[in-house]
């Protein structure tokens, strides 16, 4: 078939590319026939094939088989001949239909460690990473809390973040920056504290968040007796726990990173002590677009 590249509106519909499909602006009722892939469910044991790239409307001329308007639970009886016939492959009669079925499911290449909702998952040196589901990464608020006793010292937490628009900075109660972006009417991240210090991520805006690195430090710059647990909680009651037991040290410890990978948050234990200020720690994690006032404060 020849395709006139200057008349895209007359080109045959590409039913094999549903993810590129766009509803057209209103126009004369001819355009979108049937949208292809009618999973004909002619009978319970042998549903018809999903034609991969049928061209609606044009190839269907002499086809007697037509689509039931909707599937009755059982039985192929109710063929409705008044519907415009879809371009199912002629061979796809009930007898010739291959494997019953639901369409092939998307499978991850390898199984990812997942956080069970309502349960706790421990991050360890051997299993430092966990991937939140799209629901865990998109519903409610993700809370990251440093459950540490006074014995640890004057531990404070903060985070360096990068947003989808490229904006990158810090959020930390210690520096007085309790929202990200700073002074935003609609913050993506908030720094709060009641019993413990914690960070809240608004998952309604999860698409704005590219990555986040959580660090802990001593407010006075002294030594910390590392212990306690960093707890990341989902709206569904999933808890990802990271033990903070390490030899006592000064400086900054990078605890946890979160990367937004196509809508799924990948949470990773870092647990790396950096002998230096916050600035050095977050620079070590690639945050090189932050302008600094001093070693622990970004400029506004």
């Amino acid at each position, binding site marked *: 078939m020849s395709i006139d590249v200057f008349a895209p509106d007359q080109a045959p519909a590409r039913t094999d590319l*549903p993810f590129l499909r766009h*509803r057209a602006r209103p126009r004369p009722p001819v355009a979108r026939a049937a949208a292809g892939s009618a999973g004909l469910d002619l009978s319970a044991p042998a549903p018809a094939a999903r034609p991969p790239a049928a061209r609606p409307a044009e190839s269907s001329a002499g086809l007697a088989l037509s689509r039931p308007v*909707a599937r009755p639970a059982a039985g192929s009886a109710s063929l409705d001949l008044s519907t415009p016939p879809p371009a199912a492959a002629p061979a796809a009669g009930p007898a010739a239909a291959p494997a019953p079925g639901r369409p092939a499911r998307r499978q991850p290449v390898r199984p990812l460690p997942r956080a069970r909702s309502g349960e706790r998952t421990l991050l360890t040196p051997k299993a430092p990473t966990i991937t939140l589901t799209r629901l865990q990464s*998109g519903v409610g608020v993700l809370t990251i809390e440093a459950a540490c006793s006074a014995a640890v010292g004057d531990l404070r937490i903060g985070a360096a973040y990068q947003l989808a628009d490229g904006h990158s900075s810090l959020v930390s109660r210690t520096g007085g920056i309790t929202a990200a972006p700073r002074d935003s009417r609609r913050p993506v991240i908030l720094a709060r504290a009641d019993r413990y210090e914690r960070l809240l991520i608004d998952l309604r805006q*999860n698409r704005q968040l590219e990555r986040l690195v959580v660090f802990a430090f001593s407010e006075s710059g002294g030594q910390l007796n590392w212990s306690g647990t960093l707890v990341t909680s989902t709206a*569904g009651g999933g808890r990802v726990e990271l033990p903070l037991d390490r030899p006592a040290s000064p400086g900054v410890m990078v605890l946890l990173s979160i990367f937004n990978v196509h809508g799924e948050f990948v949470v990773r234990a870092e647990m790396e002590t950096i002998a230096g200020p916050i600035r050095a720690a977050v620079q070590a994690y690639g945050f090189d677009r932050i302008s600094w006032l001093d070693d622990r404060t970004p400029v506004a």
Partner: protein
Amino acid sequence: MATMKRGSNVALTREIPDLTGLVLGVRWDTGPEKALADHLVVATILCDEHSKALSDEHFVFFNQLSEPSMTVSQLEQAMGPDAEQIEVQLTAVPAEVSRIVVVLYLNEGMGLRRSLGQLRECVLRVLNLADNAELVRSENLADSLDGETAMTLGEVYRHQGDWKFKVIGEGYSTGVAGLAKDYGITL
């Protein structure tokens, strides 16, 4: 265009035999409470005959724009006056899907307590996917709300070989957690 009350239904494919696809549009008016809209989420749940979600992957919302069969998809950018739109390829919906339920909830947890009672207006409309023509719309579902934080707006469901549409408008005071529990979804 017809306005439908809560509980009423219409036999979509019986009345329009060549209907192959739908657009489910949700529009709202938050009145002076502009920030409310920042926290509203529309989701579509594909359910079996027992009104339970087929899986967590059958919860279609802004962070999961389609489901495994890709016949129900939420648009990143709604066309026209709706705040959110969901496209349904009716004729291609897998047989195990009995109901397609549209819900609205407030994403909570960042502090300020809000509720759907602050909405001035909330309407679910059904359009023909082929030509964007509005088929029916619900009455204003916001007028009976008070402290609710989630609501089932309406559903498209199979009935004796046809697809029907029903306006529901039932609120939840327990937010998305209550919705998830009812529909068997793991948050």
